[in-house]
Every structure is written in C-alpha cells, then in structure tokens.
C-alpha cells in the first residue's frame, strides 16, 4: 500500500502515516480477479447497493439498457423513486432494483421447460433457446424483475422525414445488433430469441466471466453499487453484507435475495 509523502494540510495533527483510500471500483476489480481464479461453484456473487449514496441519476439503468441492448418494455434495473413525508418535510429515496438472484427463487421451479435455473455461480439464468415465452416466471417473481421481449425497437414508428434525418434504418440496425448475454451473440431479428423470450438481469455474467464488473457497477458515479464474491472474506461486499445496516427486499418471503441494500 503506498504511503502519502506530500505535505499534510495544517489541520491534520496526527503523525500517523497517511494511506490513500483505494477507489472502491479498483478494489472490486481486484476482488473479481481473485474470485475468477476460484472454481465457479465456489464463487458467490452478490450485489450491495448503498441507498445512502444513490442519487437517483438512473445511469445504472441506462448503462444496463446499453450493455444488453434492451428493447422497449424490457428493463433489468429500474430505479424506484419514493417520496417520503408531506410538504414541506419531504425527502426522496432511490432504490435500484436489479434481479435479486434469489437463492430460493420462486421463478425457476414454475418454468415448464427448465429454461430458467440457478447456475453454478448462483446467478439465475434464462436459456433463450429453451424458453417458450409462457411468462409464468414473470408472474412468479415477487420483485417484478423479469420482463418480456415483444420484438419492438425504440425507433419503430418514427416514420417520415424526421426519422430519415435521424437515420432510422441505421438506428434500428444498431438496436437489433447482437448483445452478448450469457456469453453468446444474440441478434434480435425476425421472431428469433431473445424475441419472444423472458429476459432478466444476470449480473452481467458475460462481463464478469471476462474479468469486468457489471455495467451498472462501473457506471455508478456515487459508487453506490458494489459487486463481488461474498465467499471471499477480503472482498468489499463481504465487508458490507455483515454490517448491521443491511436489508434485503421482501425478506419475509424466504427467497434469500443476493442483493443487499445498505440503509
């Protein structure tokens, strides 16, 4: 750990060596590298969201939409906004809501074709090639964390000269370009998967497996979203999930979410 050698500000009276705090993003990156060296079934990915730091900028939502090329009607990580109190004593609370990656997920056993399941790393996946699009899992999720790909694009319907100026065909082609969910290229064309499938947050496993943090984590300007391996006692997330000010959504349901909120 490097020690600061610059002159200290006058108000610091301690003579103890100053250690600069490492950016939590870099620390999580180190945590991720360590975790990836372990066998997959020994990793326990969790997400910690510090509600005290979330400013409700929605950048994580947009980063997620961009990363996974999400079409209209599909959102993996909305940010819930709650107004608390009555005027003039009001405040706002922002609660990002990714998939909870429950350890006891209600969405997986209802699938009639085993298309959704918890993988070896504990992330709830959807096998797009297997999903029949019955949407039973959507109704089973108590967090509304699953959405359906209806096949539309954002530029659809923007016809006429305005669309021409905006370059609708190219924009649509970009929207339909492959995403890399589950480490496979999924182009959205015709009625092929993932169109007609249920889609959900997967902790950006395609990035994580390549040593990159989830898109929502790297985008968060307040460093409010933390990610890592809870099985690693030295990881950032392991520190936080043991703290007393941690909560999970709808814990009473016994779903054992892997997303923790710091309050």
């Amino acid at each position, binding site marked *: 750990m490097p020690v600061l050698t610059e002159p200290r500000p006058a108000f610091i009276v301690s003579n103890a060596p100053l250690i600069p705090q490492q950016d939590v993003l870099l620390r999580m990156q180190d945590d991720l590298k360590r975790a990836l060296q372990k066998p997959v079934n020994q990793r326990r990915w969790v997400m910690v969201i510090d509600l005290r730091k979330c400013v409700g900028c929605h950048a994580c939502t947009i980063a997620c939409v961009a990363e996974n090329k999400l079409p*209209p009607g599909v959102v993996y990580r909305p940010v819930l906004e709650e107004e608390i109190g009555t005027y003039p004593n009001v405040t706002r609370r922002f609660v990002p809501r990714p998939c909870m990656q429950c350890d006891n997920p209600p969405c997986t056993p209802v699938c009639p074709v085993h298309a959704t399941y918890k993988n070896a790393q504990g992330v709830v996946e959807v096998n797009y090639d297997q999903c029949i699009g019955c949407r039973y899992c959507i109704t089973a999720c108590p967090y509304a964390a699953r959405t359906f790909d209806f096949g539309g694009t954002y530029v659809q319907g923007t016809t006429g000269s305005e669309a021409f100026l905006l370059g609708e065909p190219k924009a649509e082609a970009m929207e339909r370009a492959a995403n890399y969910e589950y480490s496979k290229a999924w182009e959205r064309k015709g009625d092929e998967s993932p169109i007609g499938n249920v889609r959900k947050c997967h902790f950006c496993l395609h990035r994580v497996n390549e040593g990159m943090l989830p898109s929502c984590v790297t985008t968060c300007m307040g460093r409010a979203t933390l990610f890592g391996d809870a099985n690693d006692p030295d990881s950032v997330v392991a520190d936080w999930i043991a703290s007393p000010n941690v909560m999970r959504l709808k814990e009473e349901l016994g779903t054992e979410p892997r997303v923790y909120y710091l309050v």
Partner: protein
Amino acid sequence: MTLKKIVYILAALAIIMGAWGFYDRFANGHQNAAYGSYVVWGLWVAMYLFFAGIAAGSFMLATLDLLFHIEIFKGTGRTALWIGLISLGGALLSIWLDLGQLWRIWKVYLQGNPGSVMAQMVWGYTLFGLLLVASLYLAIRDPQSKLLRVLMIIGLPLSLFVSGAVGALLGVEASHLFWHVGLLPVQFPVFSLASGVAALLAAIGLFGPAKDPHRAQQLWVLSIATVVLALVKLYFLWADFSQSIYGNVPQNVQAVNAVLFGPYAWTFWGLQILLGTLIPIVVLVQPQLARHNRWAGWMGVLVLVGFAVARANIVFPALTVPELEALINAFSGPRLQFEYFPSAMEWSVTIGIVGLVVLAFLVGTDRLPLQSQEVA
C-alpha cells in the same frame, strides 16, 4: 331465417374478423398486443381459462349419460363431448397463440419440468383431449362398449384434475396474494361444472332436437343446476373478496378494488353479476321459462358471457397491482404499465376463435350423429 342460419353467418363473420388478428399475430408476433411486462397475461389467457372450463365441465356432464346412464340425460352425452372437444380446441388455440415462441411447444412434452404446474397442466390437457376424441368416437360408433365406460371412468377424475390445475396454476403463485389462496384450485372444478352446464343449456335450448321428449325436462334440470351453481359461485366470490378486504393486506385490497371500482368495474357489475348471474337466476327459477327452449338457451349464453368476464376478472386485477409500488413510475415505457385493456389484434383473435368454436359446434350438430336416432 332460422336461428341456426343466423348463428352460422355470425360465426363466419367472426372468423373473417379473426383472420386479420391471426395474420397480425403470425406476422408481427406480440408487437400489437396490449399486455406488457407487468400485466403479462391478457385476454387470451382469460379465454383459455374460459374454454378449458367449458371443456372439463362438459365432460363431467357427459358422464351422466355415458357412464351413469341417467335416463333424463339420455342422448346428451355425445353433444356434451363434442362441446368439450371444440372448447378444448379453442382453449389450446388461445393459449398457444399467447406463447412467445409458438413452435417450441413440443419442449413441454419432451423436455418438460414435472415439478411445474404449467407442465402438468399441459400434459393433463393433452391426455384429456385424446380421451375426449376417443370417447366421442366410441360414443358414436359403439356406445355400449366397455372401453367407453373405462374412458369415462378415467376421464371423470381427469376432468376434475385439469380444471383444478387451472386454479392451481394461479394459486401456487405466492407473489400474487390475490391468487395465492387455497380456495382457488378448489373453486375451478365448480366453475368448470357451471360453465359446462351453461354450455349444454345453451346447446340444448337453442339447437336441441325438436322431437326429444326429454328436452323440456333436461332444460329444467340444467336450469336448476345453473341457478344452484350460480349461487355457489356468488358465495365463492363473496368468500374471496371479503377475505381479501377484511384481511386488509394492501395488495389484495387493491386487486379487489380494481375489480369492484376500477376502470373496468362495469364489466364486473354489468356483465358478470347482472347479465351473467342475476338475470339468469331470476329467469331460470321460473319453471315455465326454464323449460322454454329459447329462454333457457339464451340464459345459458348469458351465463357463459358472465364466465368469460369472470375469468378476466381473476387474471387481470392481480397483475395490475405492482409487486413494488414505486415500479409504476420507475421506468416508463409502453410495455411497463400496470393497466390493461385488450388491443384490437387481441380482440380480433379472440373473436376468430369464438367463431371457430361456434362454427365447429354447428357443423358437428349438423354432420355428426350427436343425437340418438330416436330424437334426431
């Protein structure tokens, strides 16, 4: 022009109207549907529940003739089986079109999850459909065969299972408290029986054999059954709603309020309660009207309309209540809303399916030997 001819024309018109919906569904997938990622099941799922209920209930009624040989129902078994078969066709067509990936339905059979209620239901309905076909074939070709009796014995509990499974499909969902009540799977066989009775009442009343000496008596018995089952249905409704309201769990109360006072409350009060329940009760408790072909038949139709609305009022309200309240404004988009009214394409498909079922019924009554020789 006879009533049958008018209904033939209406059914044909309905199919023509439906053709556009079918085309749109196959050409554009789900893009022109009004349901979204929150209200994720719409009109087609409700119609599936509706038609599946008639199918199971009709089979139950067919056993009165073909298994128990109750004199008064003599000759109704084949008609009931035919109604069951075409209704099942309507149900499966509705739910098939609702799938995101239509052509993967085979996966439920070959790669199915035995632990999923939906998979169990698909297998159950497939078996039930095959049983209906075999039963109808035997009932026409060899009504005295032992095999028919065996099929009816197997089919009776199977029809109870498949109708209950529809309730269980919703009932097992703990995330929607409005559905998650033990009473729901218990109610559905009763609903099925009631819809089967209403369908048979309509079929015999409006299109029954003129020479059948049992006809008036059959209508009277079916009318009494309709009234009793309508009262039971009202009691179930009261039990469901009062439990939710007195329980005061916000999610439940919101769902009940959506039915009673929401934007489509008129469907509940006007179609389900008044038209589909109260008017048929008032008419059918009067013996002379209950035995009257047209009166009884049209009351059967009204009860069925009420049932279709009732199915919608079970499916939609639970889904219009957000799992997390702030989701309503979290990320806006055309598919991310907690409101639902079927789109023109959905209506078109449903009208087409209703037309197909009605046309199949009429063709069956005209072309198949559904009535015994003595009354045909």
